[in-house]
C-alpha cells in the first residue's frame, strides 16, 4: 500500500514537472534579464552614492552593465503569442527596454548622444511589436536628438510620437507623457529663439488636443486633455475659448471628485482671464493670489503669482508687482521655471521705481542664483541697456567686460547646457557693439564648434558675415555665408544669403 501511494505521488510530481517545463527557457531568460537589470541598478546606485559624481568613463562602464541585459535576452520574442508565452515575451522585451533606456540615459550623461540614438533606433526596430517598449524607444530618440543638437529631428520625432501613440489614461495625479509633447515642442522652439515657430506649434498643439476629444475617452483623460486646451488657448489669447474650456473643465471636476487637483488649473485660468479682459483687474488678481495660497504645492502656485505680478506691472502698478515678485522669491525660490524670471523682473521693477543701486544688485544676482536660466542671459544686458538709455555710454562700455566675464563663467559651468548658446549670442552682441572683431570672430567660431546647426548659430553666421564686411574682411564674410548655406539650406533667408554671397563675389 505504501509503495502504491508513493508511486502515485511520484507520478503526480513528475507529471506536474513535465507540464511546468513548457516555457521554462523563456521564463529563465526573463528572470536572467531581470537579475542583470537589478544588478546594473545596484551598481549605478553604488556609484551615485560615492563622494564624487561619476565621470564619463564611469558612466560608460555603467552603461556597459545595463547593455548586458539586452545581450542576455536576445530576440526575437514571441510577443504576439497567446497566453503565458506572450506575457513572458512582453515582460522580457520590456525589461530589455528599461535597461536600454537606462543605457541611453547614461550615454547622454556621458555626452555620447550618438550611442543613445543608436540604442533608441535599435530598440524601436526590435520592440516594434510591443507598443509600450516601442513608445519608450521613441522618447529615447527624442532625448538623443536633443543631445546631438539635431533639434529639427527631435521635433519631427515628437510629432511622429503624437501621430503613432494616442495618450493613455493615467492615474489622476499623473498624466501620460504624450500629453506633454506639444508643450515640449513649443518650449523647444522658444529655447531656439524661434518665437514665430513657437506660436505656430502652439496652434498645432491646440488643434491636436481638440482632435483628441473627437474620440471617446475616460473622464480623467478628457479632463487632462481639456486642461491642455485651456492652457494653449490662454497662451494664444483666445479668451472666449479659454473661458468655455474652463467652464467645461469645472463641470467635469464637479462630476468626478478624483479630478479635484485640476481646480488649481481652473482657478488660474479664470483669474488670468478676468485680470486681462476686465477693465479693473483686481478681482482676477485676487483669484490668482488665492491660487498660490489655496494650492501651495501646485506648480501653478508660483506661476499664478508671476502672472498677477506681470499683469500689474503692465498696468503700471509697480509696487504691487514688486510685492508679488518678492513673494515668489520668498515662497518658491527653487521653482526653476518661475523664480529666475521673478528675480529678473524684480530688478526691472526696482529700476522703474528709480532705485537703480538695488535694481543693479538684484540683476547681478540673477546669474549667480539661477545660472542655467535664460533670465541669467538677460540680466547683464539689462544693466548695459540701462546705461545706454541714460546716455552713459562709457559706463555701458565699462560694463561690457564684466558682462563678458559673467557669460564666460556661466558657459564654463555648463558648456553644453540648453542656455549656453544664448550666453554666446549675448557675448557676440557685446563684442559687436564694442567693435571687437577678434571677439566677434572667436565667439562665432565657438558657436560653430559647440552649437552647430543651432538656429542661434544661423543668426550669428549672418550677423558675423555682415560685421566682417564692416571690419573689411570680405573673405571671412564669404566663408560665414557659405557655411550658412551648407548648414541651413532650408532656411527662409537662404535666398537673401545667396544674394549677399554673390555680391561678395562668392
Amino acid at each position, binding site marked *: *500500500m*505504501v509503495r502504491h*501511494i*508513493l508511486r502515485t*505521488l511520484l507520478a503526480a510530481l513528475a507529471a*506536474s*514537472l513535465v*507540464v*511546468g*517545463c513548457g516555457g*521554462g*527557457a523563456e*521564463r*529563465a531568460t*526573463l*528572470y*536572467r534579464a*531581470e*537579475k542583470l537589470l*537589478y544588478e546594473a541598478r545596484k551598481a549605478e546606485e553604488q556609484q551615485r552614492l560615492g563622494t564624487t559624481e561619476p565621470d564619463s568613463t564611469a558612466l560608460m562602464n555603467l552603461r556597459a552593465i545595463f547593455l548586458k541585459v539586452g545581450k542576455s535576452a536576445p530576440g526575437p520574442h514571441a510577443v504576439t503569442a497567446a497566453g503565458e508565452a506572450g506575457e513572458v515575451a512582453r*515582460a522580457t522585451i520590456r525589461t530589455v527596454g528599461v535597461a536600454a533606456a537606462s543605457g541611453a540615459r547614461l550615454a547622454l550623461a556621458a555626452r555620447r548622444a550618438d550611442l543613445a540614438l543608436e540604442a533608441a533606433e535599435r530598440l524601436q526596430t526590435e520592440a516594434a511589436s510591443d507598443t509600450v517598449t516601442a513608445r519608450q524607444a521613441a522618447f529615447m530618440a527624442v532625448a538623443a536628438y536633443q543631445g546631438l543638437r539635431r533639434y529639427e529631428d527631435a521635433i519631427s520625432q515628437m510629432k511622429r510620437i503624437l501621430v503613432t501613440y494616442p495618450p493613455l489614461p493615467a492615474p489622476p495625479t499623473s498624466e501620460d507623457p504624450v500629453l506633454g509633447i506639444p508643450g515640449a515642442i513649443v518650449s523647444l522652439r522658444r529655447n531656439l529663439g524661434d518665437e514665430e515657430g513657437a506660436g505656430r506649434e502652439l496652434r498645432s498643439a491646440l488643434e491636436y488636443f481638440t482632435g483628441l476629444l473627437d474620440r471617446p475617452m475616460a473622464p480623467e483623460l478628457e479632463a487632462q486633455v481639456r486642461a491642455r486646451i485651456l492652457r494653449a488657448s490662454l497662451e494664444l489669447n483666445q479668451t472666449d475659448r479659454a473661458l468655455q474650456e474652463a467652464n467645461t473643465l469645472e463641470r467635469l471636476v464637479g462630476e468626478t471628485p478624483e479630478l479635484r487637483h485640476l481646480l488649481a488649473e481652473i482657478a488660474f485660468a479664470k483669474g488670468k482671464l478676468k485680470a486681462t479682459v476686465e477693465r479693473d483687474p483686481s478681482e482676477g488678481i485676487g483669484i490668482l493670489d488665492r491660487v498660490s495660497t489655496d494650492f501651495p504645492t501646485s506648480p501653478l502656485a508660483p506661476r499664478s503669482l508671476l502672472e498677477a505680478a506681470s499683469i500689474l506691472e503692465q498696468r503700471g502698478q509697480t509696487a504691487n508687482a514688486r510685492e508679488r515678485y518678492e513673494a515668489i522669491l520668498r515662497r518658491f525660490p527653487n521653482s526653476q521655471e518661475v523664480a529666475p524670471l521673478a528675480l529678473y523682473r524684480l530688478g526691472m521693477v526696482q529700476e522703474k521705481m528709480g532705485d537703480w543701486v538695488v535694481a543693479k544688485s538684484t540683476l547681478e544676482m540673477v546669474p549667480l542664483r539661477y545660472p542655467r536660466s535664460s533670465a541669467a542671459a538677460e540680466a547683464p544686458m539689462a544693466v548695459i541697456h540701462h546705461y545706454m538709455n541714460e546716455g552713459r555710454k562709457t559706463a555701458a562700455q565699462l560694463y561690457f567686460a564684466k558682462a563678458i566675464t559673467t557669460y564666460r563663467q556661466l558657459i564654463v559651468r555648463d558648456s553644453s547646457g540648453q542656455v549656453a548658446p544664448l550666453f554666446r549670442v549675448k557675448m557676440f552682441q557685446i563684442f559687436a557693439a564694442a567693435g571687437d572683431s577678434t571677439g566677434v570672430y572667436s565667439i562665432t567660431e565657438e558657436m560653430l564648434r559647440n552649437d552647430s546647426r543651432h538656429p542661434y548659430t544661423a543668426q550669428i553666421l549672418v550677423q558675423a558675415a555682415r560685421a566682417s564686411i564692416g571690419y573689411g574682411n570680405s573673405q571671412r564674410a564669404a566663408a560665414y555665408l557659405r557655411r550658412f548655406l551648407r548648414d541651413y539650406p532650408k532656411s527662409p533667408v537662404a535666398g537673401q544669403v545667396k544674394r549677399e554671397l554673390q555680391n561678395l563675389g562668392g
Partner: protein
Amino acid sequence: MKLSIEIAVDSIIDTLRGLRWSEYAPFFWILAAQWFFLAMSTQLHTTWGMSIVAPIARLAGGSENLHYPTFYGYLSILLGWVESFLYVVPGAFLIPLMLLRYYARTDRALSLGAGAASRLAGAFIPTLLAGLAGVGCIWGWQRFASPGIMAAWRQWMSEPMGGTLGWLAVTLGGYGILTMLVYVPVAAVQARTNPLRAIGYGIRFGLRSWPVTLVFSVIYGAPAVLVQFLLERQGVLVVSRLRPEFIAVLLGVYALATSVATYLTYGTAARLYRVARGEK
C-alpha cells in the same frame, strides 16, 4: 505513570545525549530535499532551475512571483508549502521510521525484519492524517486568527514591540497546535495498535502532556524561530540592502534548525510516551 517535570527533563537530557545519525537520517532526507529545492531556487536564471521550481510555484499558486528579485520575498512562503508537503507526505513514512529506529535501541527486534515493516505501514495513514490536520489547522490559524492577534497586540503596545510580540504569539500558537498532534505518529508505531486507536491515543496523550510538550518543542525550535523572525520581519531589508540570494541561505539555516528541532521533539516525545506508560 503520572507525568512530572522530572520525567520531562530526564527525557530531554536523554534525547540530547543520545543523538544518533541513523535515527536522524530520515529527517536529513527531508532536509536534503529542502536544500535541493533552495539550491534550485537560486538557479532560476537557468532553464533547468526554472523548470523545477516554476511548476512547484504554480502548484502553490504563486507563479506571478517568478521575477527577480521579488521571488526571494516569496521564497519563504513557497518553502513553507514545500516543507509542509515533505513533512506530511514523505514524512508519513520517514517520521515513523525515525521513531522505530529510536525504539530499536531498547527493542532489537524492531530494527530488523517484518515487524518493523508492518508497524511502518500501519503508522503511515495516522501520521499522514495527523500531518494534514496539522497543516490545515496552522493554515486556518494564520489565515483567520493571526490578523486579529496582531491587531490586538498592536493596540496594546506601540510598534515595534507590539508587532514583534504579536508575531511571537502567532508563532507560539502554531507550536501549540502542532504539539497536540506530535504523539499520533508515536502512538502509531507502538505494537498492537490500529490507525483509529493510534489517532485517539496520540491526541489524548498530546492533550494530557500539552504544556510539557509545548515547552520542550519551543526550546528545540528557538533557533528556527529566531531565523524565521529575521526572515519574516526583516526580509525586505535583506532583499533590498543585501543580496536577495541571502534569503535562500537564511532559509537553508532555518530548514536545518527545523529539521534538528523536529528530530529532538519526536525523540523526546517518544521517550516521554513510553515512560508515561510505565515502560523503560
